[in-house]
C-alpha cells in the first residue's frame, strides 16, 4: 500500500489530490503503467512523462526509482515557485 499524491494539472486531470494504491510495482515507471491502465483520466494525465516530475517520499526522483520501502509518491508538473 502506497500513498499517491497529485498536484496542479495532474490533480485536476485525475480528479483527486491523493489516493491509497495497492501495488507491487517495482519502480515509479511500473506504477505509472498500472495507473494508466485504470481509466482514461489517468492515461490522459500520464500521456507525456517528460512533462511530469515525481517525488518519492518527498524527494525529487527519476521514473526508474525503485518503490521498495517507499510510503509516498507524488506526481506533478515542473515546479513554478518564486
Amino acid at each position: 500500500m502506497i500513498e499517491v499524491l497529485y498536484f496542479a494539472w495532474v490533480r485536476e486531470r485525475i480528479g483527486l489530490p491523493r489516493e491509497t494504491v495497492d501495488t507491487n510495482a517495482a519502480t515509479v515507471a511500473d506504477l505509472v503503467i498500472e495507473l494508466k491502465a485504470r481509466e482514461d483520466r489517468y492515461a490522459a494525465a500520464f500521456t507525456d512523462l517528460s512533462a511530469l516530475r515525481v517525488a518519492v517520499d518527498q524527494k525529487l526522483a527519476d521514473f526508474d526509482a525503485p518503490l521498495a520501502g517507499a510510503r509516498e509518491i507524488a506526481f506533478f508538473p515542473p515546479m513554478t515557485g518564486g
Partner: protein
Amino acid sequence: MQVRVQAAPFDFGAEAGAFAQGHTTAGAIVTFCGVVRDDGPAGLERMEIEHYPGMTERALEQIATQAMDRFALDDCLILHRHGPMRPGETIMMVATAARHRAAAFAAAEFLMDYLKSRAPFWKKEIARDGASWVAAKDQDEAALARWTGED
C-alpha cells in the same frame, strides 16, 4: 537561517527591516521580493499557488542550508506564500546577509533559481477569460545550470 511557508500575506518592508537589523557582522544585505503583477483591467484577477505540504518545507530548508554553506552567509531567509493572492500582493521573498556584497547577491540569486524550479510550488493564473497553470520556463532551468558543476 529561517524558512517560512504560509498562506497569510506578509509585510515585505517589515520583514526586510527585521532581517537586516539582526546582523551587525554582515556588511551586505540583499533582498528579493516577488509580487503578483497587475496587468490591467483585461489581465489577471488573481493567482493561486498550490504547494506540497511537508516536501515544501524540506526543499526550502535544504536550499537555504546549501546557500549558507556555499556562500558563507551570516544568515538567510526564505518566505513563500501559498493559496490565493491578488495583483500587487507579495508572493515570496528571500534575504541574504554576508560580509561582502558579491556573496550576498550571488546567494540571493542562487536561492531564487532553486526556488523557481526545485521547490514544489505551482502557480495558477485566473484571468477574466479563464484559468491556466503557469508553464515552467526553459530560461529558469538554464539559470539553475550556472550553479551546478562548480562545486
